[in-house]
């Protein structure tokens, strides 16, 4: 599916491309079409973020206040709700688990994907087509196809109810996408760059880390953001391989929490806020990378 995305790398063709022509067209500054455009965009923007805004606001109100004032700002900002969810609701524990799983998955998957992507993008070797095809299966096959034997294998390996049970399969799935992604990057590096290094006598390892990697930062960052968000939000795998409450990740913890405390809306809302906040923060900083990755067409 890689080829679909090569053209999509975000918005905004450069001014020059549209430039003068667009200018000629503008007669009145606020023609109806422009008003309609901004009106519609604003409406759908609010619709997209509205539900999260009201849940964050709900997390800072009392249950009684949510009942009569859903959309307004809290009369008193009850930050204590977040603290309650963090301690009483065990979200501190879930947060810890999520970090323990997500950090190694992102780091190791990036490292391994750089290596595999490098090999597939810049080297020729026997069986490369077959191996690459096998790796692509991981992008196309849904997690449901894997999770049943995974559970029984992990049980035999005595790894159920450990962080490994989430970390290892998450790395495996990530490497599949990462290989495709980094291969795309490495295959587009101009050959002269590599030739110069080879002439200088670097071996492939040195070429990779000294010459290629400094140029690969945007590609790696995009990949890392996607790995982080996928791992952080993963639900099916933790649901299946984790029964110990102490090891629950945030989404799993939240799902069980809302089952038990349906009536305590402020606390549930606070929990949801805690789960969402880290991904929102990462997204806020790296949104260009995230959008480029997801619209590239290389993602299931």
């Amino acid at each position, binding site marked *: *599916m890689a080829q679909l995305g090569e053209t999509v790398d975000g918005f905004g063709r450069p001014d020059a491309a549209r430039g003068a022509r667009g200018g000629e067209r503008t007669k009145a500054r606020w023609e109806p079409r422009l008003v309609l455009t901004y009106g519609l965009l604003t409406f759908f923007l609010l619709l997209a*973020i509205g*539900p999260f805004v009201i849940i964050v606001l709900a997390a800072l109100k009392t249950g009684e206040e949510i009942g009569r004032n859903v959309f307004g700002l809290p009369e008193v900002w009850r930050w204590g709700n977040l603290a309650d969810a963090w301690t009483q609701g065990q979200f501190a524990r879930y947060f810890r688990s999520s970090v323990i799983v997500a950090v190694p998955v992102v780091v190791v998957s990036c490292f391994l994907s750089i290596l595999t992507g*490098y090999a597939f993008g810049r080297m020729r070797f026997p069986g490369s087509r077959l191996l690459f095809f096998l790796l692509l299966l*991981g992008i196309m096959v*849904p997690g449901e196809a894997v999770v049943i*034997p995974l559970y029984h294998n992990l049980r035999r390996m005595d790894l159920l109810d450990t962080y490994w049970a989430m970390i290892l399969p998450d790395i*495996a799935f990530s490497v599949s996408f990462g290989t495709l992604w980094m291969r795309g990057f490495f295959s587009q590096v101009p050959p002269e760059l590599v030739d110069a290094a080879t002439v200088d006598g670097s071996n492939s390892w040195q070429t990779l880390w000294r010459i290629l990697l400094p140029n690969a930062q945007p590609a790696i960052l995009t990949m890392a953001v996607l790995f982080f968000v996928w791992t952080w939000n993963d639900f099916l795998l933790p649901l*299946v391989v984790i029964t110990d409450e102490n090891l629950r990740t945030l989404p799993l913890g939240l799902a069980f929490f809302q089952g038990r405390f349906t009536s305590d809306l402020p606390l549930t809302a606070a929990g949801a806020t805690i789960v969402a906040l880290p991904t929102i923060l990462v997204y806020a900083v790296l949104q260009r990378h995230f959008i480029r990755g997801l619209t590239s067409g290389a993602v299931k």
Partner: protein
Amino acid sequence: MRVTRARAPGLGYRPGERPWTALLYVLPGFVIYALFVLLPIGQTVRYSFFDWDGFSTPEFTGFDNYVTLFRDEVFRLALRNNLVLLVFYTLFPIALALLLTALLTRRRIRGLGFYRAGLFVPQVMSMVVVGVVWRWIYNPTFGPLNQGLRAVGLDGWARPWLGDFRFALPAVGMIGTWVGYGFAMVLFIAGVQRIDEDLYDAAKLDGAGSWQQFRAVTLPGLRNEVTIALVTTLIAALRTFDLVYVTTRGGPANRTRVVALEIYNNAFGISRVGYAAAIAVVLTLVVLVVSYAVITLRMRTAEG
């Protein structure tokens, strides 16, 4: 599949190093992948030919699980529900985004980055958070939706959305529409800005109205973007699990039961592991066939 062969110059290694060096780079990643993805794919297929409760000795039963599957009322119901969700997850977001793309100006939009970032927010969120938020919005007594309906005098419309036999499935589906439309909009708006303005001018000279311009220029120009949106949302609709698990768990009375939930319930709820594996195989095949079909279809239209 685009296969760019690495050109002979510029390969990353000296002649003496290959080809075993390359395999060394591939090995660590591939071994983990093989153990935790590739092997389980094969095992799922194998399990599907056995009657197994997960603990005692599996009994080989050939295609029995598949035969049972296609006679199973609940599975058929789940499949039907997935097809209904397809309308909500795929058709609605793409149709809506196309409609908007047609209405919006094609000129550069100021602050587009801002809108794009906001429209994409649902993509970043855990489906569990999305489920929790919408369960509250749909809550019969204190949910914002019913409160809003009552506030404008539409008391008769207020209902326990997720607990209603008729409305539970569309209510879950609308969440899918909400998750997907921003994604499609961002794709299409980006795509339409890359279409050459001269094509529109030519169409206008031929006397094409805005609808004809949309059909003759915009739609063909968005072929790639529509394909990406189709494949992504189709797969999401077919394998939807988290959202249903959190909002309804398949209820009320199986009205929102979906295939992925059937896999989970059979494998981990009632220990019909072989049967669950058979469902997983069918789901996987459907996902692969559908993605393949969409992509081939696109290539054919690209040639024509």
